[in-house]
């Protein structure tokens, strides 16, 4: 009990200091509610964002196999692309294009999501059509406008490589086959968790791990309601939500594409039209451009549009900046350091 009240006191004083230093004067009411929300949040009873637990229980041999496959261009039809071509591990796990460029320059229909922490997502793909990472892994490989391969082509190629033969024989009863390839890829992807962000440190009790401004941004993130959807370990990635609750995003943007139909493409239920898997916000500062259509290049713009269409709020420049600062604290320094 003593410990809890001490923590609450410390947080409260941190906010007091931050307000004094920046001259940041939040709107009355909102700010006090936000502070008390954060205090409640940190007191532990209603923690909405959960620190990432490092991946455990993985088979290092399968992870190793998966890593090799992930970077192997033999998995694409004309051997020009690997998984890593779009999910560049040194660039936040994405390709930084609006939509991906596949085999022979074909243009994909939807923005590339990051592979980092993808194991934390409750479903895979924007429309959630794959229930597991194993199921997802074959998607882009067999997609004619992505890697454009077939298993009948890929498996003999891998079987011609003694390293793969040895690796698969050691780990799988049936050697090289579609199931073992996707299993190894999935095992590797499970190893791509990033538990080292400053915000994780903050959640684990290091109250100085994030700056006063980032704390203020977090308070806004809670009080504005972003946290209603972006919660859990992956700060999202665990529910579907309609895009455009307080406004019509697609009418305002125009040029409706098939991909914009979202989960409707899977279920064909009217209630699922324009509904997408809420993306996790882990390392979001490193994965521009944003949204399923990749139409937004800056995090600030993404925050403004999200607030407008999902929450009905028009954010001030100052509030936007603070939320963006907070989102930066979700980046794992291990990814930021990469060129």
């Amino acid at each position, binding site marked *: 009990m003593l410990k809890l009240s001490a923590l609450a006191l410390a947080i409260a004083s941190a906010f007091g200091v931050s307000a004094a230093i920046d001259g940041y004067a939040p*709107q*009355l*009411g*909102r700010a006090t*509610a936000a502070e008390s929300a954060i205090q409640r*949040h940190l007191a532990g*009873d*209603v*923690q*909405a*964002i*959960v620190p990432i637990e490092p991946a455990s229980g993985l088979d290092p041999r399968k992870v190793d196999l998966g890593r090799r496959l992930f970077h192997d261009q033999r998995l694409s039809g004309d051997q020009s692309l690997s998984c890593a071509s779009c999910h560049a591990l040194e660039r936040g796990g994405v390709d930084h294009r609006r939509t991906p460029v596949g085999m022979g320059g074909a243009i994909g229909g939807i923005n590339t999501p990051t592979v980092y922490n993808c194991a934390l997502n*409750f479903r895979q793909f924007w429309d959630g059509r794959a*229930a597991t990472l194993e199921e997802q892994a074959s998607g882009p490989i067999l997609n004619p406008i992505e890697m454009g391969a077939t298993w009948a082509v890929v498996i003999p190629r891998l079987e011609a490589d003694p390293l793969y033969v040895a690796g698969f024989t050691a780990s799988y009863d049936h050697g090289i086959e579609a199931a073992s390839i996707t299993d190894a890829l999935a095992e590797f992807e499970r190893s791509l968790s990033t538990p080292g962000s400053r915000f994780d440190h903050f959640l684990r009790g290091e109250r100085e791990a994030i700056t006063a401004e980032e704390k203020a941004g977090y308070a806004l993130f809670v*009080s*504005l*309601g972003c*946290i*209603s*959807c972006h*919660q*859990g*370990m992956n700060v999202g990635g*665990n*529910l*579907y*939500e*309609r895009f455009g*609750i*307080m406004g019509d995003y697609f009418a305002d943007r125009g040029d409706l594409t098939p991909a914009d139909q979202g989960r409707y493409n899977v279920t064909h239920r009217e*209630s699922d039209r324009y*509904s997408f898997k809420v993306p996790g916000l882990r390392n979001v500062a490193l994965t521009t451009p944003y949204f399923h259509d990749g139409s937004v290049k800056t995090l600030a713009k993404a925050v403004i549009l999200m607030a407008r269409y999902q*929450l*009905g*709020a*028009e954010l001030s420049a100052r509030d936007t900046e603070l939320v963006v600062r907070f989102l930066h604290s979700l980046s794992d320094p291990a990814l930021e350091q990469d060129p």
Partner: protein
Amino acid sequence: MIPSRIRAVASTLATASAAIFLIVFLYQKTKAVDLSGQARLAQEILLLRNVDTTIDQDVLRIRQGFLRHYDTLNDNLQRMETSIARLEAVPAYFRDAERRAWLADVGRFRAAVLDKRDAVESFKSDHAILANSLHYLPNLVTALVGAGTDPGSVGRAPEQLRAILQEILIYNLHGSAADGMPIRKSVQDLREGDLTREGARDRDDVRLALNHADRILEYKPRVDLECERILSAPTLRILEDISTTMDESGRMATWSGNAYRIVLIAVCALLAGGVAYFLVRLRVANDNLEQRVLVRTAALSQANLDLEEQIAQRQRAIAELMSAQARIQRIITIMPSVLIGTDEDQRIVLWNARAEIQFGISVAQAMGRPLADCGITWDFTALSARLGGIATAPIHLPDVAFVRPDGRPALLALSACQLPSDRPTAGMLIAATDITDHKAMEAQLMQAQKLESIGQLAAGVAHEINTPVQFIGDNLCFLRDAFRDLMPVLSSSRSLLEALDAQTTDAAPVAEIACLLQQATKNADTEFLIAEVPKAITQAIEGVERVATIVKSLKEFAHPDGGELAPVDLQRTIESTLNVARSEYKYVADVVTDFAADLPHVQCIQGEFNQVVLNLIINAADAIGDAVAARGGRGTITVSTRRDGDTAELRIGDTGTGIPERVRAHIFDPFFTTKAVGKGTGQGLTIAHAIIVQKHHGTMTFETTLGQGTTFIIRIPIAA
């Protein structure tokens, strides 16, 4: 008479087989029911019930705001879906009808889970919107009412909004769908009402608040419906059904097993009664039969039985013989050694697979040919000479040379024995193994060991030579300086002699030159030089002799023997070894030697013998080193030789630590070492032992006392 008997036998057989069939059938039915599958399923169902309840709880907690994220909800749904597959593994004791019922139940359960998952997905999406508006709206209204963000505002909208907010909060807590209608109307009224009296900024906030109120009114009933759909999902009930089906099946299986058991016991009892009855009847019938017929029939059938028994025995014996034969054939075939057998005429009758591979000669080629002409490239004349004594005892030849099919010379280790025979000549069995690689390995190991000791010695020898070379150098420098100093004296002397020859003409220069000579003699300190130069020369020569001794010793130590036994002066060769090994022991021990004067030259392979001595001296020095490190001071290595009849004995003793009891039995084992890693290979004593025992036909033993030291004793015959 006879046909009726056959009929009786036939009917008895039929009855007996029917009874046996019945008993076997009943026994099968009573086999214990394997309930482990049931236990696993029960556990699975229990887990599912827990997970299902946890999902319901989490939904309620989320709805009430006690849980703010969906992770646990997703995890539990996932768990539920994956465990359905495990439910589909139906226990083995299920009957077909039960199996169908079970799978139908599981199918229903799967549908219910998928339906529930759908409801949860909708709940998650809708609840996020509802929770957000429920959170946001009060803050907004409080801000509007409390401060009035717009100074110019004089409107009443904020108060109306607060009233709506209150109604909404109450509605959210326990409102039915109908309760939403009036609130909806209030919101509508406020939106369409006059907002012009509000400030511009307030007006925006009021509109936003009304939007959020709309969302609450829209999504609250939806979330409630979804909650109800989730909480009233039939998953738990179906699990109960499944559980009941399973329990009943288990009970039925157990019950029917018990029932069959009772029937089985009854049938057995009945059968026993019947058999007893028939026995009694048979007895009575027998008594009535004519005795002669009985006797003859009995005799006949007995004879018949005996014959059959004999035939059966014979067949069994033949079968056993054949299987034994096949077994032996298999053993011979897969035997990893060469096996060759000959008959009394020395013709080949056995030639196994290994022999085919080893000599490149197939069974077909070899069979029936004389051993002398079987195609193996070897000196058969010499071999048959060596096999001369085979009649008395098996012969082992460790080094039979032959040529492999690829033309490379190789060595066989060959054993041969005579097969028992009652004729004057006898067949023989030859077993052989190609030991060429083995031999090559042994030789390599020896060489490696020798290189190791030479390497170890090189540093020490260099040091030993360095010291005399240094003082030889010093003395030569001194002599060079002395000669330089003496040069003026010599030249003055020569001038004086020339002057004396010319003295007749002029006397003055003689006196002058004599004076110069005197001066030069004084300058050169001739007295000192005359005293010191001879000493320097002697020292330099001594130094050179020391170097020469060491070099000679090293040469003798590394004596390139041809690997043959030759007469060797043990004293001399041991002294050489001591000389080259000096640097190994001189810091820790003194060497005391005691060589027997009457010891003649001994038959030795000098190089290998030296290696043994060196090895023992290094071991002695190491043992003393350990002891000295513990207690200080210096130790003593005692080397002595002695003649004992036809045997020469060499003892090398140290005052080291001694060998502990538990390792004594192992010190000649390969790779056994007590030295630190990297200091020894553990091969030294093994190889030394092999050299003495195998190559010199001697013995190598040791005496040791813990804390006092160890003495190794080598005894080798003087004449080979």
